[in-house]
């Protein structure tokens, strides 16, 4: 485990809780602990932050020395994959299958055509068709403990990494302390159980037409995640394109809600359910209703 710089953590008392905050995965991260013991909370915060930074480091697509970096630059040569990564790849494979191909961790290259920065540039169809030839989870080749990524293709754990980190961080701090705790990495949340004083009060940022609408929830335990296009959209010809791309077409999903918040047993499941709902576009609400998961959609 990486050494954690103590000054990277902010510890503060908040009523009956202690909040430990840090930055990771381009998001504000937080661990809430139902304790009055500041030192205990700081220790737990170091564990959680360490796990967040470990996963960020290991799976960042911006680092050449990350697992993803190595795979994306392998140029078709088999790369040995550790057990944790293999489990994540198997999870991604299952999600690809469950979504009928709509969720695909090889779709990252499409971002080169689509820049979701609020601007109004529309990529041309030729560019998208060219990029589509570099996409397809089915084209990855799995060997016993190695993976072959065909040249030109790239992997991106962006759709699952943060939620996975939330669940892992909570599992780790639970080894040290059995009181109520809540892990929040930029709105992706998991908690073991609620404090004695009552449910966690969770404010979820949800984009709306004017800025941010906060969804205030009472939260007991389990996972909570939001998929949405807060600022990540662009407009072209008066049409607003969200950041959720349907890899099967190469174009953004049309008619998706601005944001989908889902509660489930753990953060990863909630996050994937929210993403899969987004991929349904106009059918997001109905999809979620059919799945029977608690959800909050904003259009």
């Amino acid at each position, binding site marked *: 485990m990486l050494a954690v710089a103590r000054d990277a953590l902010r510890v503060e008392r908040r009523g009956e809780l202690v909040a430990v905050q840090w930055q990771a995965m381009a998001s504000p991260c937080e661990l809430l602990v139902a304790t009055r013991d500041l030192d205990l909370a700081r220790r737990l915060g170091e564990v959680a932050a360490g796990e967040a930074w470990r996963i960020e480091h290991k799976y960042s697509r911006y680092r050449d020395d990350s697992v993803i970096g190595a795979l994306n630059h392998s140029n078709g040569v088999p790369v040995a994959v550790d057990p944790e990564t293999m489990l994540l790849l198997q999870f991604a494979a*299952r999600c690809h299958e469950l979504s009928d191909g709509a969720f695909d961790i090889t779709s990252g290259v499409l971002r080169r055509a689509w820049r979701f920065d609020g601007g109004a540039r529309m990529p041309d169809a030729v560019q998208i068709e060219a990029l589509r030839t570099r996409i397809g989870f089915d084209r990855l080749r799995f060997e016993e403990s190695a993976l072959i990524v065909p040249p030109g293709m790239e992997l991106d754990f962006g759709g699952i990494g943060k939620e996975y980190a939330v669940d892992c961080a909570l*599992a780790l701090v639970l080894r040290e302390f059995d009181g109520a705790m809540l892990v929040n990495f930029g709105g992706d949340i998991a908690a073991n159980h609620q404090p004695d004083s009552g449910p966690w009060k969770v404010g979820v940022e949800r984009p709306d037409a004017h800025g941010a609408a906060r969804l205030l929830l009472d939260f007991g*335990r*389990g*996972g909570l995640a939001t998929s949405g296009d807060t600022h990540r959209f662009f407009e072209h010809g008066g049409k607003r394109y969200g950041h959720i791309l349907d890899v099967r077409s190469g174009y953004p999903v049309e*008619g998706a809600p601005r944001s989908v918040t889902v509660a489930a047993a753990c953060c990863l*499941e909630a996050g994937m359910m929210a993403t899969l709902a987004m991929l349904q576009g106009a059918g997001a609400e109905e999809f979620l209703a*059919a799945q029977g998961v608690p959800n909050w959609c904003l259009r």
Partner: protein
Amino acid sequence: MQLKPKPAAGNLRAGLMAATCALLAPSVKAQGVSGADEFDNASVDTGLLYYQEDKGRVRSIDAIVKLSHDFGDERTLTATGSVDSLTGGSPNGAVAQLSPQTFTTPSGSSLVATPRPRGEDDDEHGKLYTIAPGDQPLDPSFRDLRVAGDLTWSQPLGIGNKLSANGHLSVEHDFQSASTSLMFSRDFNSKNTTLGVGVSGELDVIKPIGGVPVAGSDYTLFQKSDGTENKHVLGAQLGVTQVLARNWIAQLNFSVDSSSGYLNDPYKLVSNVDVNGVTQQYLFESRPGSRQRRSVWLGNKLALGNSVLDLSLRYGTDDWGIDSQTVEAHYRMRVGGSMYLEPHLRWYKQGAADFYRMYLTGADAATSDKSADPRLGAFTAKTIGVKLGVPLASGGEVGVRLEAYQQDPKTHTSALAGLAGLDLNPRLRAVMLQLDWKFGF
């Protein structure tokens, strides 16, 4: 260019949960974090049902409250309570005549009008009622309040197994029923197949108003005994649920049950008519002391675009000779945002029990089993309805359902001179209005 978003099968959640568990099992699962979330861990369903038959027959108003609580880890407790108020007239089994017919309500012991002391409640000694010529005899005293409660507990039993236990109590002033059931199910084949077995038992206690009539005896003799009668039912069920395609799930159920004890309706009569169709005698009905029923049910849920089709077929048979077929369809479609409209069609056909007669004639009056209860006769029934559901922002839902029901008896005329031109088994029509309100907290 845009691909049409495809509807996902209902089992996607199960698949995703399984995948998540596989990934997090070494860390999270071992720490006990997994389990159901605490959102909407309790919910309340309330419903109000109004049912009205035509021609002054039964009317019922039923209020239902259902409470569900999710204790996490797939352990749920569901409690249902209902209060059902019934009023109106119910066929007493006697056949229509060209002359007036006089009966007494069940608490009576004479067909002769006797003056009563002032202030005495008529109902305690029965009230005479007279049926106009040509009319189906209806006992107008049908009035009851039924209070029922139901408790169901479900929990996993090891990995992939589920156990569900249910208890049910229902109380009316002349009828009490207690039943219990135990269901066990097991998932196979990545949760694509579920096998279920169940057993159930029921005990009914019948304490007829005015006493228990001697089955098959002459109505005018009022041969009744005080006390109660019992009925027992034992049943078993075997079912398999299979995901057949991404948007198609099917279930096949086999059920058997065996009833024994007092299976009569103590208030039902059978007319014994002469060769001209003129009633000579009324007999209390008499049914066999046991009944074995078997049924097979095939249910399908199909996601079609934004709509869901629920189509089921049922075939039932029993040793009373009643064979029945049911075809039922619900089609749920989205209208205007998140609301949905759900048309409902049901078609039902049953044959008559071997001992069913609209009336007895000299020849078959001696048979031991006899009943003129229209529910044991041959008929077809159709239901057509529609429900509008409006999901609420809070996660709850309000719904309104309107249905019409029509039951057409197969035989309703007679060739006997004294019964010619009479509708002996009139068509039954009913309307149903249901309001639902569901909310979680």
